[in-house]
């Protein structure tokens, strides 16, 4: 009843919103959360394809994505904490060593 393209379109929309968040916010945590949103949109896509094709491979991939996302969050938050300790600020704009 619900066509796959609906799910896929929803995933696309979520992905775009995640991109918006990455580009428009300065707070490192919010950017990180937006990335998680993007990963979730991708998960939705995988699972939709799995059901489309009648196999569970897509779900396995989504499973791995969740696992790796967890690991990534751990490391990333550690980095944000370390950065905050240095500069007392969580803004990504403060890291501009590459400015000419």
């Amino acid at each position, binding site marked *: 009843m619900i066509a796959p393209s609906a799910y896929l379109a929803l995933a696309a929309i979520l992905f775009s919103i995640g991109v918006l968040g990455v580009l428009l916010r300065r707070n490192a945590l919010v950017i990180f959360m937006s990335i998680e949103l993007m990963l979730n949109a991708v998960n939705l896509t995988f699972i939709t394809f799995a059901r489309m094709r009648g196999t569970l491979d897509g779900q396995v991939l989504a499973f791995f994505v969740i696992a790796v996302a967890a690991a990534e969050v751990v490391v990333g938050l550690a980095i944000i904490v370390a950065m905050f300790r240095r500069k007392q600020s969580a803004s*990504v*704009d403060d890291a501009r060593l590459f*400015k000419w």
Partner: protein
Amino acid sequence: MVNGLLAQSQFPSVVRADWLVLLFPAAGALILMFYGQRMKRAAGPIATLLMTASFVVSAMTFFQVVARPEGSRVFIQTLYRFFNAGSLSVKVDYRIDPLSIVMMLVVTGVGTLIHLYSIGYMRGDPREGRYFSYLNLFAFSMLLLVMANNFLIMFVGWELVGLCSYLLIGFWFDREQAAVAAKKAFITNRVGDFSFLIGLFLIFAHFGTLDFGRVFSSAPTAITAGTATAIGLLLFGGAAGKSAQIPLYVWLPDAMAGPTPVSALIHAATMVTAGVYMVARTHVIYDLGHSAAIVVACIGAATMLMAGLIAIAQDDFKRVLAYSTISQLGYMFIGVGSGAYVAGMFHLVTHAFFKALLFLGAGSVLHALADRADITKMGGLWRKLPWTTFTFVLGWLAIIAFPGTSGFFSKDQVLEGVYGAGHTSLWAIGVIGAAITGFYMTRLLVLAFFGKSRDTEGLHPHESPVSMVFPMVLLGIAAIIGGFLINGNGENGRLARFLEPSVGPRIVASAPSPGSPQTPVAGVLPHREGGLSGAALSAIATGAGVGGAVVALAMYGGLWDWQRRRENPGLAWRALRNKFFVDDVYQFLFTSVGRLVASALAFVVDAKVIDGAVNNVGTVTTRVAAAGRRLQTGLVRSYALGILGGSVLLLAFFIARAVR
């Protein structure tokens, strides 16, 4: 035998070794260039000895050539192949035939005498060795020019004599006058050489070869009269530069800043005659392109008249002789332009004798007076310089064409040839020229050598050493009896018969004057029915010359207070004295206008446009870089934006491709 050309095995051994004629002066030039300064006083005698050897070989060749029967006197010897470029194959080869052997004898003979003279004249000069090296180099170049068997080698010699002329005119390069004169000579020559070169291109374009034999034998069938005219005019452009005709004569008077023996050799006897030789050598072209020949004759006439008039008003000893040379060259061109090639060459030979003699005499006078050349301050030199005066008088007799002298015979032949070809107006101008010649030469003679001394500085002139007097005496003898010896008794004389194969019967594309039948042996002296006889022509010409001399004798000998007249010169005299302001016109046209163009180019084109373009490249680069630098914000989010933008574009591209 084709065209009298023998197989090489039939060449006499002397002809086969004639490259020695070229080798001796070339070797001298080389050796003296490197060791000349170290040799000091020995440089001169060595150079002279080499020239004498060259002359001896030339003379031997001459006798061998004469010994041959009349039809078989052309020898060509190939030295080596110069280069092959496409369809053009150029060999370095020399040609011994009556015309070239005459020139060789003149160059080596007069050249040897002048080398001998220079030993005395240049004594004490710090760069004596270099001088003799250049003199030998000049002899080599001139011989290369006259012995060449194709246009390219002739052009090589042509250019080389121009170079030597530059080196020798500017020999005393620390004198600004000499350096400037040398430059002027070279540049003016160069203009002429450019014209010559275009002529060579035309020849190659139409004939496919530059070899004399092939060009001349195929000329009547290979090219039209129009082309021949074009070629003739272009080649004559070069001759005008080298032989100082209008409009390229301006370098010769200034060239008197060089050592006088140089003037004698280069500007009286040899280099300037290269143009006349060239016209005689390429007579086939001028016979075909008759309009070009007419132009040659007319320019010769105009030059002769103009230079003669200027000579009347000059006060510098050598300048009178310089303009005289230009004028006499005009004579020769009137001759060869009218088809009287033999007469032109004859006058070339006799002129070599007496003009060289006159110049050597000038050198002697300058040597005695420590380079003071103003004839208005001379006078009475005959007492202190008897030999110089005597030989100078011999030369004077020849140049005014006093009966019996060589100049008499040659000038007569030229005028007879012009008249016979139907150009009565040119002949009349020639007669007037003879009168003017008589006038200014006598003026020079009287003012410089006779009368009371007008010297104000208390100079003590002394006669020149034997090494200088001896050549003058020899030349004096040649100037007097040479004409008679060479030419026998006038037309169809020995020289005429000798040269005829080289300057051959005229190939008439269109008859010059329909009323007069031309004899087939027309390279010599065409006869004209119903005109004046030879004797009448001779009498008129001689009368003009001697008459001019008498007038000058009277005027400057005491009848006319010329010194007072000098204070207020009239317009005519001033025009003559200032050489008709030609030099000033050239100066304005070329120097001033040229300078204007140069400064426009330098300050506008170069500084603003070109420098601007180059600088702008730098400026643009800097600005673009400055703008581009703003991409480097150092902010992560800007870069993220860039990534997003790039990936969107890529995605769009691939989707578009996939959709299609």
